[in-house]
């Protein structure tokens, strides 16, 4: 770890600004909307051509590792990134390189978008290692936000290699990010509504999911089997944490519960608000905005439901205020980290507006996929506490997916562990 210089930022917006200033890259955050993206692209296109400078020769893994992966499959990615003159990888086959970074041979031919966020980060580390031979420096952004603790060793290995080759590494982290295998956080209990318990149940039998494995017409579909028998008719207490390794199937389980992915048998959560599909905020939360500014989201979704639109504005405002209050209580200077009220544009506000939209009509279960992604520790705590508080006041159960269990353990009233063994995925309750 000593090889890497660490830069810490209180929010992803400031981190991205610093990255752009340093490397001259244009990485507009999607929540700024299409206009900003097009303007940034124009700036990049018409900027004077840079000679081969440090910025051109640097490997920069941005906050979203997908943007670092340029080709449709890992096989192509590794094949092109590998240098024929690099002695470390020259003699290895692509399968061996994949195995070095915990990829099964079949994953090399899967489309990159079908890999989990953690797997994409591992792929980004692999690609950075392959390119290291030709680069002058490495900058890696927020690796802990995607990577499971068990995979940190790959990152350390990359830093070691860079150090041996005298290539500087800069880590762009958010406040509270720790790159150590075991995180010890102070025990903290969320007691928003003392004595108030919110529960939910999972109905339905075991089920199968047919996944489209590839976009190529000749590819074969993939069948996964979910075993949720141990959860059946067990009272699950909110907040429930869904945890497991990268690629274990946590997000897939959430998509099945929400009806986003069709299953062979219906599987739906049950709570005070009846039985039906849950509402989900995806890990890639910003794709929900469809590159529209945050303020336009409620108007678009509730175009034909004016009452709903009024409600979403009220909930958004309540959640913003509550988050601001919590940030101010922990550190008065941090209250601004929620974002400006007049013109919302932060990732924090993007998450709040998506959550508010889902709470307008109380769902049987609200699932947040990696709610702390892109947020500093204090931001993440403020957001989760505000949302859990709001939901529990209204008896809406909430489940949160995380690969970084220690960060959210103190919120868990129930924990579901998701484990994958080949084509079989098992979900079990942790005592």
């Amino acid at each position, binding site marked *: 770890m000593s090889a890497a210089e660490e830069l810490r930022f209180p929010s992803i917006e400031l981190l991205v600004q610093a990255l752009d200033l340093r490397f001259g*890259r244009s*990485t*507009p955050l*999607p929540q700024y909307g*299409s206009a900003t*993206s*097009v303007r*940034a*692209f124009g700036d*990049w296109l018409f900027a004077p*051509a*840079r*000679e*081969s400078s440090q910025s*051109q*020769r640097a490997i*920069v893994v*941005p906050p979203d590792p997908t*943007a*670092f992966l*340029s*080709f*449709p*499959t890992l*096989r*192509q990615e590794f*094949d*092109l*990134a590998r240098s024929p003159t690099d002695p470390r990888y020259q003699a290895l086959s*692509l399968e061996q390189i994949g195995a070095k970074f915990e990829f099964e041979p079949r994953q090399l031919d899967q*489309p990159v*978008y*079908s890999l989990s966020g953690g797997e994409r980060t591992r792929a980004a580390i692999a690609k950075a290692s392959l*390119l290291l031979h*030709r680069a002058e420096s490495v900058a890696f952004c927020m690796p802990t936000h995607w990577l499971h603790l068990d995979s940190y060793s790959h990152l350390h290995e990359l830093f070691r290699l860079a150090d041996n080759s005298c290539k500087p590494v800069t880590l762009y982290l958010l406040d509270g990010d720790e790159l150590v295998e075991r995180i010890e956080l102070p025990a903290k209990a969320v007691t928003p509504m003392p004595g108030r318990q919110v529960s939910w149940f999972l109905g339905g039998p075991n089920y199968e999911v047919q996944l489209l494995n590839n*976009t*190529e*017409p*000749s590819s074969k579909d993939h069948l996964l089997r979910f075993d949720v028998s141990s959860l059946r008719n067990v009272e699950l207490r909110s907040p429930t944490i869904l945890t497991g390794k990268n690629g274990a199937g946590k997000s897939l389980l959430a*998509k099945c519960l*929400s009806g*986003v992915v069709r299953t062979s048998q219906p599987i739906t959560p049950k709570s005070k608000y009846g039985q039906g599909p849950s*509402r*989900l905020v*995806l890990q*890639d939360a910003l*794709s929900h905005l*469809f*590159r*529209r500014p945050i303020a336009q989201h409620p108007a*678009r*979704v*509730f*175009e*034909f*439901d*004016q*009452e*709903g639109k009024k409600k979403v504005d009220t909930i958004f405002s309540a959640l913003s205020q509550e988050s601001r209050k919590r940030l101010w209580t922990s550190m008065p200077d941090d209250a601004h980290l929620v974002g400006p009220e007049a013109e919302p544009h932060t990732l924090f506000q993007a998450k709040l507006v998506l959550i508010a939209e889902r709470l*307008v009509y109380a769902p049987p279960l609200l699932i947040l996929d990696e709610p702390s992604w892109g947020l500093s520790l204090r931001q993440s705590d403020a957001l989760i506490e505000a949302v859990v508080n709001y939901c529990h006041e209204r008896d809406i159960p909430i489940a949160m997916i995380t690969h970084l269990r220690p960060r959210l353990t103190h919120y868990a009233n129930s924990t579901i562990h998701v484990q994958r063994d080949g084509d079989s995925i098992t979900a079990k309750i942790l005592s």
Partner: protein
Amino acid sequence: MIDSALERRGVLRIRSLSLRLALLVLLAVPAFNRNILDTLLPTSLIHQLPLPLLSVLAFVAYSIVVYAIVVWTFGIKGLTQMLALAVVLGLTVVISMAAISKAPILGDWLQGSKTLAQVDAKAVEQFFAMLVVIPLGLLIIHSFPPAELICRLRSPTGTISEHAIRVAIVLRIYSMVADAISSFYAAWSEENPKVFLPRHRKDIGGTDKLWKLPMWFFGAAATWGLALVTYCIEQIPQLVTQLDVTLDHKLKGHNNACNK
């Protein structure tokens, strides 16, 4: 290197890109040449009973050849998917033409100097033509995967021209749309469980549906279009930089070729 990167089936087995292109162009000539297609599928087909047997046999034989090459390359599943798309698009065209031809002003414009029966015959001809042209078009597109072209840029022999890199970037951006659709589709189907209906539609009722739902549909199409275009634009600077780092040791001339 390319063998390791791509599983080769059907026309993809033809290593030479120019030979592959030549074969596909040859295959496409009857479908995309108006004169030949009119001979195979005369507009007056449905009014000539019995049907001109030779034309019909030639068209059926040609379709079988195209389908066989699609199956050879992408398997029976690939052909089924392509035919499903062709049928949906073909029916949309036929039904739209039939509806428009009967409308007061648009009908006159569509008909021109033709009779209504000729317009109907044309629609039927287009339907059958689309059953062949769409699988053939998709076969051509999928026969030149961007990844393979980019792999070839990094051939160990010879250097790379700036133009080749530009072509590679354009092709990769094109294929990126497929990645983006998948991620946006998950968000969309969460937002709207019935993909072609808004989740929240309390204010739509009775005759409102006639204009509010089409309005929503066009708004949704615009949202998707804008999101996809923006997504691709956002990726370009990063993609260019990545290709620059990956391929620069092969570049002819200067080392900033990708940038502009």
